[in-house]
């Protein structure tokens, strides 16, 4: 609807890839037996105290630096509310003095999204609602597992700069790439290590002030993020156009039903009674620590895409842009760069990486770049046909490496010596005198016929280009 403008801001919670929790020495692990990683601190036993994990701070600073934030002296605060997954019935978070502020993130198309803040906080335990197919409202009772209680999180809050669900998806996807590239997180949305909430509102196009926003929770994939925003925007516009008003509320995305639903949430839950956490002291990373973090950062996805574009000799085709995004997303760009550095054509390396290798990205991430490079060199040099090269690549991926030449030989792909090719051509010509005469008279349609015969006779071991060359040479 053109007369309405959509306004979107995202809040992303990312778990940090530490060995231990934010304030205690319990293991930070996903998928363990319930309540095996618990101690007095993370289950809130009387008398227990928190002590801040240095590596969590390091990773939080990496995120801040990757998002061009100012890293500031910060203070932890208590956010007070009762909930059974909250072991102390308060969450230790950062409130008015967050660690990272005033950054930005550029989408692949160059659109810049402001980052308001990226602050540290602790995760909650995991609830299971028992009965009524696990739906909270009708459940009979609930069970709590505190393994996740106290796992370090960074909450990244964007400015309300996005205007389409596509931008929101691009932001989440780019942020995910940055979180992984910075080494701060594995970015796995399906395991909940990256969780996205969307603040969505609409306003008449050109209007200055914002409309009333709704916060959408339970977005477990980029796909549901896009669908949920599109649904919510349509809902709000329909509401407003029918003379209704949007209520500021938190809404739950129901993936199967494909709609958002208002949550039953306590009105006074908003009085969190924040105050500085007296059991912790201020955190003020000095300039030296900040410099160490900034200088230790590797290239971000944007830089890595640029490197590939350069390797392709500039202005890539639309198809290549998609391949570049896919390859960087999967972290396969190292493979492509190594191959082209080793002399293989970058475009060929990109195509193979974006297709055959990407198809098995698990194995692909383990593939030996040297092997990949020399395989592509063989294909480019004509020693192997495209079909053969793909077959060898498949084998290399299966075995996680190996010598492509050896694998090709073993698969019977060794290129034919020119002499033996000539012999086969002799036989084929002798066996088909009539066709040969017409070919010599200039009937080019027969090129395919003879090529096919030669391939047949050599069980496809011959290289197509070589066969064509030999046939033309004979025709004179």
């Amino acid at each position, binding site marked *: 609807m053109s007369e309405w403008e959509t306004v979107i801001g995202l809040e992303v919670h990312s778990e940090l890839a530490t060995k231990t929790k934010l304030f205690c020495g319990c293991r930070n692990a996903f998928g363990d037996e319930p309540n095996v990683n618990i101690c007095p601190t993370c289950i809130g036993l009387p008398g227990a105290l928190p002590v*801040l994990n240095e590596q969590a701070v390091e990773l939080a600073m990496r995120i801040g630096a990757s998002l061009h934030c100012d890293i500031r002296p910060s203070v932890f605060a208590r956010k007070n509310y009762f909930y059974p997954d909250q072991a102390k019935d308060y969450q230790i978070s950062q409130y008015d003095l967050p660690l990272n502020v005033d950054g930005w993130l550029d989408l692949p198309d160059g659109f810049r999204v402001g980052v308001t803040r990226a602050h540290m906080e602790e995760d909650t335990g995991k*609830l299971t609602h028992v009965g009524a197919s696990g739906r909270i409202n009708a459940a009979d*009772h609930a*069970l709590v597992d505190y393994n996740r209680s106290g796992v370090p999180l960074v909450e990244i809050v964007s400015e309300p700069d996005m205007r389409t669900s596509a931008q929101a998806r691009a932001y989440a996807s780019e942020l995910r790439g940055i979180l992984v590239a910075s080494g701060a997180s594995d970015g796995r949305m399906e395991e909940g290590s990256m969780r996205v909430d969307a603040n969505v509102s609409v306003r008449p196009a050109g209007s200055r002030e914002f409309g009333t926003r709704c916060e959408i929770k339970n977005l477990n994939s980029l796909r549901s993020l896009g669908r949920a925003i599109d649904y919510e925007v349509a809902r709000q516009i329909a509401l407003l156009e029918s003379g209704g008003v949007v209520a500021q509320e938190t809404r739950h995305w129901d993936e199967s039903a494909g709609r958002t639903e208002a949550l039953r*949430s306590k009105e006074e839950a908003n009085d969190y009674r924040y105050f500085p956490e007296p059991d912790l002291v201020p955190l003020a990373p000095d300039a030296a620590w900040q410099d160490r973090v900034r200088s230790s950062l590797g290239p971000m996805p944007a830089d890595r895409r640029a490197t590939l574009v350069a390797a392709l000799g500039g202005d890539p085709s639309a198809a290549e842009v998609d391949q570049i995004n896919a390859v960087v997303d999967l972290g396969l760009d190292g493979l492509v760069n190594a191959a082209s550095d080793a002399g293989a054509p970058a475009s060929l390396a990109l195509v193979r990486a974006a297709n055959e290798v990407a198809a098995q990205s698990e194995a692909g991430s383990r593939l030996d770049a040297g092997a990949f490079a020399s395989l592509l060199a063989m294909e480019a040099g004509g020693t192997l046909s495209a079909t053969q090269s793909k077959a060898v690549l498949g084998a290399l991926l299966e075995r996680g490496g190996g010598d492509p030449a050896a694998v090709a030989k073993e698969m019977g792909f060794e290129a034919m010596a020119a002499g033996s090719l000539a012999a086969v051509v002799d036989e084929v010509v002798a066996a088909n005198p009539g066709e040969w005469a017409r070919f010599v008279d200039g009937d080019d349609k027969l090129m395919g016929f003879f090529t096919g015969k030669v391939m047949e006779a050599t069980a496809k071991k011959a290289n197509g280009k070589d066969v064509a060359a030999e046939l033309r040479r004979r025709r004179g």
Partner: protein
Amino acid sequence: MSDERVTSSLSRDDVVHVAHLARLDLTDEEVELFTAQLRTVLDHAADVASLDLSHLEPSSHPIALENVLRADEPRPSLDRDEVLAAAPAVEDHRFRVPRIGAEAP
């Protein structure tokens, strides 16, 4: 120091609201009693509330420390059975609670 005194406006409804925030259930008699008693304390605190201290930073710690950190090294966790044995209700090695009325805030 400014002269205007802040006197407590604590109402009966405030007490009821605060009791709910703190997950306490008060009888009407308790509400009356606590309203009166908390007013007394807050009126005594009026001397503090009416001071002009805008020139001072609040202190949340008596002794100022900074950047107290621990290495990211695992420490032994508690024995699960010992912890769950002290819990009011347990099911499948997890803490069992009655149904949860509302989503987390």
